[in-house]
């Protein structure tokens, strides 16, 4: 595939791939832990396992929905003044990571919430009948039961993040979106670059999905004690 490109284009595509991986990994590192915590909280309150300060959780849920409903391109542009005031830069890496992390946290928390809510409800009865404390319920029952679907939720979030990361070139974040759209599609000489970038994105998605499926299957089997 690299043979189709000349030296400049090869350099561009390598730089862009590294930028995309960087954006993806850093925003995932920020959004997976925070998103998981928020998603768990939302689900546990929904299931009435926790009950104190419900209104806080309802506000959190509304905020998550708001972040998810703002068009992403708009979200990136809204973040610019904040990024400039906080980090002294309105272009490139910093605002890209901020906006990706924000949308990542919202996506992950909703998917995690769904996984936990969708869990087989008999698990609660089982836990209570065995006299489990709330902590034990979480650690020994919910977590074990839900972790394979959590992995699938993460996989799905990563793929969403990759899709979102393809437009951060608008605020100077670079990446494969830049080579595919700006110097691929819009320029009269970039058709090969456009297709090579797209194929690279497809490969990244396939790898993420494959690893996610394998890990989820493994955890699923382990749960059933096979």
């Amino acid at each position: 595939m690299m043979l189709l490109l000349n030296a400049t284009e090869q350099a561009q595509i390598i730089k862009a791939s590294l930028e995309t991986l960087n954006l993806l990994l850093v925003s995932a590192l920020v959004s997976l832990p925070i998103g998981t915590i928020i998603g768990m909280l939302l689900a546990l309150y929904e299931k009435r396992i926790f009950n104190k300060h419900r209104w806080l959780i309802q506000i959190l849920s509304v905020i998550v929905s708001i972040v998810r409903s703002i068009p992403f391109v708009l979200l990136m542009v809204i973040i610019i003044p904040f990024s400039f005031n906080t980090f002294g830069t309105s272009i490139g890496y910093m605002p890209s990571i901020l906006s990706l992390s924000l949308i990542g946290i919202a996506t992950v928390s909703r998917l995690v919430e769904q996984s936990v809510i969708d869990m087989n409800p008999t698990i609660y009865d089982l836990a209570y009948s065995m006299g489990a404390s709330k902590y034990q319920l979480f650690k020994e029952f919910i977590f074990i039961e839900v972790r394979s679907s959590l992995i699938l939720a993460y996989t799905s979030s990563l793929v969403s993040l990759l899709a979102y990361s393809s437009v951060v070139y608008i605020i100077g974040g670079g990446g494969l979106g830049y080579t595919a759209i700006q110097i691929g599609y819009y320029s009269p000489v970039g058709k090969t670059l456009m297709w090579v970038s797209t194929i690279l994105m497809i490969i990244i998605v396939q790898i993420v999905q494959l690893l996610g499926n394998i890990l989820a299957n493994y955890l699923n089997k382990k749960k059933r004690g096979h």
Partner: protein
Amino acid sequence: MKKILLTITACSLLLLAACGMTNQNEDTLKIGVNFYPMPEIVTLITDDLKEAGIKVEQVQMDYNILNTPLANKEIDGNMIQHQYFMEFFNTANNAQLVIAQPIYHSKFALYSGIYDSIDDIPNGTTIYVPEDVVNLPRALILLDALGLITLKEGITVTATLDDIASNPKNLVFEPKSLGTTSQAYHSDGSKLAVMYPTYARDTNNELMDASQVLAYEELNDLTKTYAISFVTRKDNLNDPKIQTFIEYLTSNKVRNWLVKNYGWAAEPAF
């Protein structure tokens, strides 16, 4: 375990903050670029400028927001806009951006796949024109110059469809965004449209050649104000680095490259 996690979080936050603070190097020029052929032009003169002691760094992002970092002094100049786009930003944001050097005049043309001359255009033909507040006036000025319509006295770069004083052929105006004009034009039987060659695509989404061009916009004092330009702030316009950059930007090397590679869509403005 908690301590380790905390340390990792703190370190990564510091790292992120460090990434954000790009050190402003004394002899580096940051130039904002977006669409073809601006990145190519800057790349073309980067090595020459290096020999002259100036490092050039390209900041590549969407042109709609490239004026903000320029006004914030994060970059030193950009090559994305004409005078009217800049003035619009200046007024809206109370900024002081100035045109440092016009780079090229985009060709702007009346397209038709059916009619061979202006006189052949029948009464009541639909014509597709750009819808935005900068390119619609430019299209109307072109049609006025071609004698298809006349604009009200004294109205030029602010013209709207309401400013058409006479429309002898009863043309029906269909405003479309730049990116969708050519598809609308083809769907309607390729009758009439005002487009930039860079946006004129055929039904296979490939760029069209000039065979359907009925008339180009004529370069005069008015249409020259639409030159895509190198823009800086008022306070760094006279910076020697900027002046050197302009010197290389307007060299014969760039001019020849533009004529050869982009001559189908624009002509150099220097």
